[in-house]
């Protein structure tokens, strides 16, 4: 029997959301709470991806990763050295979050001022070909999942 990939991704998203919510509530440390919240957001983004709402899925990841990154970095700045060290683990999110926000702004401007060349779909399509947007989204999903997993591992090691 062939594995139904959509069902599997749906189930994975469900588990990510539940685990993220429970982890966020029960975690004793602030940075870990934020990381679990990010896991919840990733689960929701995966669900939207399965439901073919690609734009919202991408924006959800970009916006909330940016928010989480700013949370952690500012928390590190204001709460002292120990928290800063943990905040540094999440700074790998900064680069791609910036690129994502740039895409977001560009597509916003293109819609507002009717420059169809600058839509995100076109940019990704030019770079990756016909299925560029899907590839770009998958890449971002994998990268963000890896980044959050690595930050969690670094935190646990400390």
């Amino acid at each position: 029997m062939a594995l139904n990939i959509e069902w599997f991704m749906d189930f994975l998203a469900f588990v990510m959301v539940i685990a993220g919510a429970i982890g966020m509530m029960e975690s004793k440390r602030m940075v870990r709470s934020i990381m679990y919240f990010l896991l919840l957001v990733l689960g929701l983004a995966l669900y939207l991806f399965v439901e073919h709402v690609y734009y919202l899925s991408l924006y959800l990841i970009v916006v909330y990763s940016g928010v989480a990154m700013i949370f952690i970095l500012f928390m590190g700045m204001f709460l002292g050295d120990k928290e800063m060290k943990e905040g540094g683990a999440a700074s790998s999110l900064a680069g791609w979050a910036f690129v994502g926000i740039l895409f977001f702004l560009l597509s916003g401007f293109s819609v507002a001022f009717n420059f169809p060349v600058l839509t995100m779909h076109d940019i990704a399509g030019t770079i990756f070909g016909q299925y560029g947007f899907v590839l770009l989204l998958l890449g971002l999903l994998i990268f963000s999942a890896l980044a959050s997993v690595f930050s969690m591992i670094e935190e646990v090691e400390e």
Partner: protein
Amino acid sequence: MMEYIPFFLLAAGLYGLTRRNALKVLLSAEMVSLGAIILVAGSQYQALALFLLGASAIEAMVGFTVLLWLYKTFETVDLDVIRGLRG
């Protein structure tokens, strides 16, 4: 299975609003608004979902700024300790 996620997010978010840690309260409020976003995203009003997403991100940042100021003033984010505006 995933159809119930907005309701789960609403319930978990409401439970989280009763916690003592201000950061968890803030993230729980975000969970409630994420539930609304997911609910709207499944409908035909996807532009509204995008608008809600931006609004809730801004709300998170404002809440976080308040949280930082609370910490600088009271040196804690425990809401049982911060009782300056109690009725």
